[in-house]
């Protein structure tokens, strides 16, 4: 190959590499960009907004808000399944689907054992509990106090160990203090512009 050709090739490869790295950086950015989070209800509301969504006074309650179509939330549901495998029936688990239909996520979640599914058609429950992003997970102790509020995936749509799952496990199994604040990765539960 001629020297000119080599230089051109090097330039092309460099441009390509830079482009690819930029793209990869963008992917990173996307994956690590959390959804909006509001202040969660610090104690289980008396009127959760959905009939049947009641707290079990005998054990802690795990509450997960999921957008029925959000592809990123499938990772949350898989992490939830792992969590349930670890925790068993030590917690009462409720998954609230906000929106107008069940979607693929409902189908997936309905196959998990030991959880109760709810449909929050008007988003009342999400509003009462302060959930804005699909995948938002809250953990209330037996007394109804909020002990954890955040995400249980390490990144958007990313399966695997995460700080959120580790904290909930520690709360249940070792009864250690409070947690939360982990980023929530998922689609917005509310339509854009809606309060």
């Amino acid at each position, binding site marked *: *190959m001629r020297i000119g050709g080599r230089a051109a*090739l090097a330039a*092309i*490869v460099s441009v*390509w*590499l830079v*482009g*690819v790295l930029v*793209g*990869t950086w*963008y*992917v*990173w950015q*996307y*994956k*690590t960009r959390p959804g909006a989070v509001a202040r969660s209800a610090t104690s289980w509301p008396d009127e959760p907004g959905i009939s049947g969504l009641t707290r079990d006074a005998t054990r802690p309650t795990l509450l997960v808000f999921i*957008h029925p*179509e*959000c*592809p*990123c939330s*499938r*990772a949350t549901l898989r992490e939830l399944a792992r969590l349930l495998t670890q925790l068993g029936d030590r917690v009462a688990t409720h998954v609230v689907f906000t*929106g*107008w239909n069940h979607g693929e996520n409902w189908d997936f979640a309905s196959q998990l054992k030991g959880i109760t599914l709810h449909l929050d058609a008007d988003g009342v429950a999400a509003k009462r509990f302060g959930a804005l992003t*699909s995948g938002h997970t809250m953990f209330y102790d037996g007394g109804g106090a909020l002990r954890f509020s955040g995400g249980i995936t*390490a*990144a958007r*749509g*990313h*399966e*695997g*160990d*995460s*700080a959120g799952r*580790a904290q909930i496990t520690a709360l249940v199994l070792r009864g250690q203090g409070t947690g939360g604040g982990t980023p929530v990765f998922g*689609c*917005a*539960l*509310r*339509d*854009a512009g*809606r309060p």
Partner: protein
Amino acid sequence: VTASVADRERIAARAQALVEEDRDRVFSRTSRMFAWLMIAQWLAAIGVALICSPWAWEGRERAIHIHVWLAAGLGGALSALPVALTLTQPRAVSTRYVVAVAQMLWSGLLIHLTGGRIETHFHVFGSLTFLAFYRDWRVLVPATVVVAADHFVRGLAWPESVYGLAAPEWWRFLEHAFWVAFIDFFLVLATLQSVREMRRTGERTAEAEVLSERVVEMNSELERRVQDRTSALEAANAGLASSLAELRHAQQQLLLADRLAAVGRLSAGIAHEINNPLAYVTSNLDYLDEQLPALIRDPASIAHADIETIGQDVKGAIDEARQGSERVRRIVADLKMFARSDEEQREDVDLPDILETSIKMVMNELRHRGRLVKQLDPVPPVHADRGRLGQVFLNLLINAAQALPDGDPDANAVTVRTCTDGQGRAVVEIRDTGVGIPPEVRDRIFDPFFTTKPVGVGTGLGLSICHSIVSALGGDIAVESEIGRGTVFRLVLPPSAAAGRATIAGPISPARADHARRILIVDDDPLVLSSLRRILQGDLVTVARNGAHALDLLRRNAFDVILCDLMMPEMTGMELYARLESEAPHLRRRVLFMTGGAFTLQARQFLERIDGPWLQKPYTANQVRELVAAKRAAALAA
């Protein structure tokens, strides 16, 4: 074939070239595979994005998910350059490195698109293995570096995405890198081993090629030599064929020359044989010419008894003339047999028949040297050329005749014998009582151009030609000889296929006739005697058929003229003359010699010595009468 030092150098260079070619082929093939893989990964990524995350949602509103754009855009970008390079520069090392980097980045993208599923991480190991298809361990370096760098950077910035831990140990990335290095180790080993095998294969192929070239070179050299030799042989063959044709032609010419030479040597005798009958044919015609005009002109003047006598004489003259003509015709026919010069024409021939002809030819040569004894028993026919076989017999008979010493015909003989041997083959023996062949000469007598005869007498080819003719017939010729006792040539000839069917006719004995009057006529041929008697019918004619009879008559009677043939068997005219010189010298002047030809030196010298006319056969009646009258007159004058 063994390799020389130069060959080993060629083998090494060729092996290197073959390895390079082989590696180029591997690089090209693997690059093509990666081109397809890149395109397939891109399409698969778009498919995965469309299936798993087609939409991004915000409440009830949806938009195309960023994954779809990423798969199409970033995936397309990731594949584009490697595809372009693998298609345009499939063998370039830069292509392999770009492919390696792109492939590992594809692992990251696919892991992302599948939500970080642990199963997708196997893409990394699969990709490393696939990269090893290049059989270039260096390709694994950038791939491994990309994986390590990715883990290191992410380990620092976002450990959960790599290790699933928020605060992993600092060496965690090394652990991951170890497993990548682990597989790299085996892949590098496999790659190096593969390259070694390629090299060995290259060396073996190069060795085979070089040695094969050597074999081809040796073969072509061999072919060239064979071709040269073949050309030389063809040229030699052509020369030989030409020489053979010339030899055959020469042999034919020699055969003919020898035959004609033999016949030529016998020409004196043949002329004699022809002149004798011609003599009495001519004289009888003269007689008729004289008698017939008188008979026609005035038959009444002739007495009845005379007419009867004259009629018988005329009839006799005509019959004898016819017999003489027939003899000439047969002799000419016999000569034709020897004069044939065309190609060999074999047929079933009767040996005694051919022997008879040959004997006739040589008889004049023989008769004044010795007797001829014929024991011609029937033999199986032989498939041969009549002329060539006659040539053989003629040669042997001439040799036999010439082997006899001159001047004692009673004591010498040539015996011609035919018989059949125990194997049914025809045997011809020609035996003479001559001087014999010395032992030192005997082995060479069949050699060409070997002769013991004086220059001009023999060509030295006769026996050589006899040998070749008899050998060509599948027969054999042998000689036995004893000095002073004689020689016998024995021919053994295989019978023809028709042997056993032939019948052999025996020789016919000639008729005899004697007459006697005042003029003594001495000749061995009775028809000559008869015709002369008729010409000289006005004289008292007495005839004698040989010298001894003539001497006997001369002792008892007086003759004015002695008309004597020069060449006779047993006692020639010359010998008779010699006897007269000693016994009755006065009679010498009365002798009038006649001859069909003085063909021997002895005869010519004799005729010069006697200093007088002689009668040359064929003669006319007038010549006879004139010379007889002249001789008579001379004798009376003396």
